[in-house]
């Protein structure tokens, strides 16, 4: 029997589903996953000045020595930046100073974009593998991988605590399963609708992770054109002809997350990119 444990973390509705007969065990597993989510949120949230990321962003030109876990994450982001030719860039958060996606029709002028762009670019960051130095005005944002990383870490923690219990960990739509359900059935999850009038679909999952990137909620609409919220860090402009959503299936949540982000960044070429990479994905336009 599947028991569901729900909570809110990292600004999103989260849930843990456990297929077991003991509701107390399911509650314990849910609490463990919640604890892991809070731990990662406390360390890596951009929105908390007391988080590690907050501290790094406030350091302003001073080198910050990182602990092992954070160093691993930064190394991961660094490798992704190189592999994606600069498309995946954790310093791109500064662009939101120019772009405000609230459904209004305010599109920034070229100077504002250029001004924001000056503080964007991983190549401008000092990273030697243990210490991180950000120039004044730059910031890092691990939002692109923190939630997915939290899912993977939570799942690993549950697997250690209760090996053999099939679980599904879902943090705001980024989710992963430990394996098939107790009697071999697949888990059924909903892919969120893009707009309220579009129908959400069920997805069946027996192994691996699912993440969805989309521009449903945050966009600027002007002159009949929808400027999605995914910005190209190299130009400071929204990716044109980005899909409405990309849902990727991959063995781990972090992989799925990076792949769905990279696919969105390909704009019109999202499907071709996913196909050439041999990735199982669903793209809606």
């Amino acid at each position, binding site marked *: *029997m599947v028991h569901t444990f729900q909570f809110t973390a990292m600004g999103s509705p989260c849930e843990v589903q456990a297929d077991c007969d003991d509701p107390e065990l399911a509650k314990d597993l849910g609490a463990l996953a919640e604890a892991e989510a809070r731990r990662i949120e406390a360390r890596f949230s951009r929105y908390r000045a007391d988080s590690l990321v907050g501290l790094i962003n406030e350091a302003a030109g001073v080198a910050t020595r990182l602990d*092992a*876990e954070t160093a*691993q*994450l930064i*190394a*991961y982001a660094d*490798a*992704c930046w190189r*592999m*994606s030719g600069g498309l995946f860039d954790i310093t791109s958060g500064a662009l939101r100073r120019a772009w405000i996606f609230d459904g209004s029709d305010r599109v920034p002028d070229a100077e504002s974009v250029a001004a924001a762009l000056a503080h964007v670019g991983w190549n401008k960051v000092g990273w030697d593998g243990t210490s991180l130095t950000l120039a004044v005005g730059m910031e890092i944002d691990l939002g692109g991988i923190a939630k997915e*990383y939290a899912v*993977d*870490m939570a799942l*690993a*923690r549950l*697997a*250690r605590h209760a*090996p053999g219990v099939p679980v599904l960990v879902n943090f705001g739509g980024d989710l992963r399963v*430990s*394996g098939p359900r107790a*009697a071999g*059935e*697949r888990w*059924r999850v909903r892919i969120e609708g*893009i707009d309220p009038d*579009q*129908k959400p*679909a*069920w*997805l*069946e*999952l*027996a*192994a*691996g*992770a*699912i993440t969805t990137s989309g521009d449903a909620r945050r966009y600027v609409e002007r002159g009949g054109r929808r400027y999605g919220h995914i910005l190209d860090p190299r130009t400071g402009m929204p990716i044109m002809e980005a899909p409405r959503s990309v849902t990727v*299936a*991959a*063995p*781990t949540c*972090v*992989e799925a997350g*990076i*792949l769905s982000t*990279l696919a969105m960044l390909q704009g019109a070429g999202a*499907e071709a990119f*996913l*196909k*050439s*990479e*041999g*990735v*199982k*994905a*669903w*793209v*809606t*336009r």
Partner: protein
Amino acid sequence: MQLSETKYRKLGSIAAGLSALSANLLSANAAHAQDASAPQNTEAHLPGLMDEPAPGAGSVVLDSSVLFYQETGGRVQAIEPVINGEVHLDNGDVISGGLTYDSLTGATPNGAAPSTGRQTFSSIIRQATSTQVTSTSASGNSTVTSIPGTTTANSVYTQPARAIPLASFHDHRVAANLTYNWQADADTHVKLGGAFSVESDYTTFTGTTGISRDFNQKNTTLSLTASVEGDISRPHGGTPTAYENLNTLVTGGNDHKTVINVVGGVTQTLTRFWLTQLNYNYSTSSGYQADPYRLISVVDNSGAPLAYLFESRPRSRQRHSFYWGNKLALGPTVADVGVRYYTDSWGIKGITAEVSEQVPINRYLYVKPLFRYYKQSAANFYEPYLISQSGATTFSGLPAYASSDARLSRFSATTIGGRIGWRLFEDSELYVEGESYRQAGTHTIAGAPGQLAGLDFFSGVHAISVMMGFKIKM
């Protein structure tokens, strides 16, 4: 919403690089290494209409539908709306029930043999009043004329020459059933159910019980079901005795029969994609087995009809049925292949072979063509007519039993049809099925006496069925 799905292929360089990077990141940061035996792969699937899982605990399924059935040649026509529901409780028990209503009209062979001249069928029936009334009875096309001074009347209808004589009728039927299926433990289910069916001249009550048990990690299921059925035959004119002449007043009232039915079966998962089932069904029936309206012609050596007698059938019947069915998931399609061998104590042997294939067109639509072939031998007392050598009005030396009912004759039948299923919205299905059922058998009877030689005795049907329904899961 345009949804495109990419197919899995070998990983490209970015995806492969990410895969290695991610594994590194996670194993470095997890306090203990990831479980090495956990499968590092992905199995995600966007299910279509045919991938819906079987209803599980906590779901309610409602299926409502209507059947339009029409035999060619003015024969039987029926409309049958049905509603069935299943409530799956959280503890694994299932309550299922349904209601059926059936409206039948048309004409059906009355059992008499065709003749080169018109035939008049005159029976004597009881009447409430003794005044002269001409009306149409339950046999739609007959004329009822009172016999003055009595409480009886003549019910008369004629049938054209060289045609199988038909009697028209109309009737309504209501039926209901309810079953409770207990999940006694993880592997055992016990069921108890009842049903009844009532029409103007027939009532049935049935009680069913069954048990099934799973073995071998649910790969094998053994099941045993037993049911007892009591049927009460309440024909409009009373129940005739065997070989009673049509033209005498029937004094019999109601009659009944009891049927005991046992089915034992084994269902076995052979592979991930192949489920097979073997069933043995034994049935024993005792009591009134005849059709109270059915006649058999007694003809003389020239084939001319001498009299119409009510048929005679044994008062018991034992049946054996062996069924072997398979469900095969062939790629995205599901094939259903089954054969049945039937034999009974009346001498009928029948074989049935059925195949259908459910094919998804896209996520919302499937088609399911089907083909069925059936062939049976005649009952050992099946006679299209009886010949009287003496030509008298009383007959001696008649066989113990005789019936000209086409259901007991030798014939074959094929069904060709197909269904379309459409997912209008989540967890629902709109379906339409059309079928053509055609019986085939010998038309003329070799060695038929006199005028009967060369007449067409074949009364098999060709029927078109259209079924449409809507199923919803909540």
